């Protein structure tokens, strides 16, 4: 047995080096705080590294830049800061009563203690109930992106995409770019959920988009060999006699995300159920601080949205965490105001309706609880 592992202390621990965590670490580091940024992957960027498309949003926040390039640019800025340490292939295991965070790294369990913690752990993909959904070849959209855009391995020859939200549409486009035939994109809702420019873009490639359809069954014994899809009625029940057999060797599920917030549950951050934000999400204020003092959240871990808002939330969490610790953030009031107004603008249009409704519920619940 090894002896007791020493607890390593620092000002801010940022858990997760995706868009939110990267920006939190950058802003906290710029203020001079000692920051530890950890991620379980061997690279920074989280899901950004799999995004081959140009980002939407404001030109001033990386719009027009491809996702994987955004990850590189922010990481390069962080690497210039001597007071920020990035620890990769480091998985946060648990958060304890005494504020100790245990981390698995290179087969060893390390212990860290931060004066403030930013939880930017992202999300996990939702699953869908249908017959044979456990067959190899039924993948989450993130898995398909990882396989083809990180490792350059084709997930299939011909694939069925389930879900026409932004992820389903974008990943379909990426599949065609990689040389995979997308048999169809099916969507249970009566309307396409993602941006319509994404839909038109895959449609021009000849990929059919079928709204009002769901997957009934995957076919195959060892692996996916096909799928049966069918129409659903307004009560979301399958319509008899509308079944269509599609020959594919993989089924990709892009049916939504939920916050990955086990560490927050452990830390006894009050969690609330808000479907518009993806399910259980932590209570938090406008400055991204949870009711457990000095535990901050940002990005999908705080509620499912998208990468541009995740970066802005990360910035907010970063500057607020360090200013609470007594570091002076240059021009703090203006910076904070600018981030808040940028977030408001991003969410102000018709496509931001759901997130606005979710955040309004969060505010109501917070005011009742705190």
């Amino acid at each position, binding site marked *: 047995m090894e002896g007791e592992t020493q607890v390593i202390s620092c000002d801010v621990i940022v858990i997760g080096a995706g868009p939110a965590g990267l920006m939190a670490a950058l802003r906290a580091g710029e203020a001079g705080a000692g920051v530890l940024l950890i991620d379980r992957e061997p690279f920074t960027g989280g899901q950004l590294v799999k995004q081959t498309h*140009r980002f939407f949003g404001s030109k001033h926040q990386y*719009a027009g830049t491809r996702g994987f390039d955004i990850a590189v640019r922010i990481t390069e800025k962080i690497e210039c800061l001597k007071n920020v340490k990035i620890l990769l292939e480091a998985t946060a295991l648990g958060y304890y009563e005494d504020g100790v965070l245990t981390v698995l790294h290179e087969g060893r369990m390390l212990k860290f203690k931060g004066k403030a913690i930013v939880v930017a752990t992202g999300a996990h993909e939702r699953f869908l109930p249908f017959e044979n959904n456990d067959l190899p070849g039924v993948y989450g959209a993130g898995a398909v992106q990882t396989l083809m855009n990180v490792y350059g391995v084709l997930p299939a020859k011909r694939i069925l995409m389930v879900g026409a939200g932004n992820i389903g549409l974008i990943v379909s486009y990426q599949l065609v770019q990689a040389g995979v035939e997308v048999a169809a994109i099916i969507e249970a809702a009566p309307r396409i959920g993602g941006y319509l420019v994404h839909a038109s873009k895959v449609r021009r490639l000849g990929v059919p988009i079928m709204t009002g359809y769901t997957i009934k069954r995957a076919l195959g014994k060892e692996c996916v060999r096909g799928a049966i899809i069918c129409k659903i009625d307004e009560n979301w029940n399958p319509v008899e006699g509308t079944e269509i057999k599609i020959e594919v060797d993989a089924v990709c599920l892009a049916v939504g995300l939920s916050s990955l917030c086990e560490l927050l549950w452990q830390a006894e951050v009050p969690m609330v159920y808000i479907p518009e934000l993806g399910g259980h999400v932590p209570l938090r204020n406008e400055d991204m601080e949870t009711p457990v003092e000095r535990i901050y959240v940002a990005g999908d871990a705080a509620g499912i949205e998208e990468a541009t808002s995740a970066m802005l939330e990360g910035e907010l969490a970063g500057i607020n965490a360090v200013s609470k610790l007594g570091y002076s953030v240059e021009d703090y009031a203006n910076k904070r105001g600018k981030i808040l107004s940028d977030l408001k*603008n991003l969410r102000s249009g018709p496509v931001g309706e759901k997130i606005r409704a979710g955040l309004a519920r969060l505010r109501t619940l917070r005011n009742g609880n705190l």
Partner: protein
Amino acid sequence: MLDKDGVPTKEELLKQLPSEERLDRGPVVVIECFQEIPCDPCYYSCRRRAIREFADINSIPIVDFERCNGCTLCISSCPGLAIFVVDKTYSEESALVIMPYELLPLPEEGEEVACLDRRGEEVCKGRVVNIRTRKMQDKTAVISVAVPKEMVMEVRNIRVTS
């Protein structure tokens, strides 16, 4: 229906097209962006300020077609690949459709390609007259295809057949 299958209807398209009269005068942009989404790079890409300043980031781009000279700079700036330039004055029988393209293989200049409509269905043949892959375009090729004049508002993609 755009929000049912990703294909805009004639009515949806008409809202944002340049007039017939403007189309007859030479190259001009066609922005097929019909939904308010938070996105503004096209505004910043236009050096002639032909894309009007956005009231807010969710605004749909509005083009001053008199200012637009069809320079094509905005095409590769659009994350939605929704911007095209059309030139009905290209020749007696043909018009040019200039489009973003992010697939391999790229066609060769002079090559005949299958021209696809907004459903991805082949509607005619066309000839590639120009391919631009400048560094500032960041891997979005901009391809000019000569198509029969009457197809200029139909053709929005190509398939390389060679």
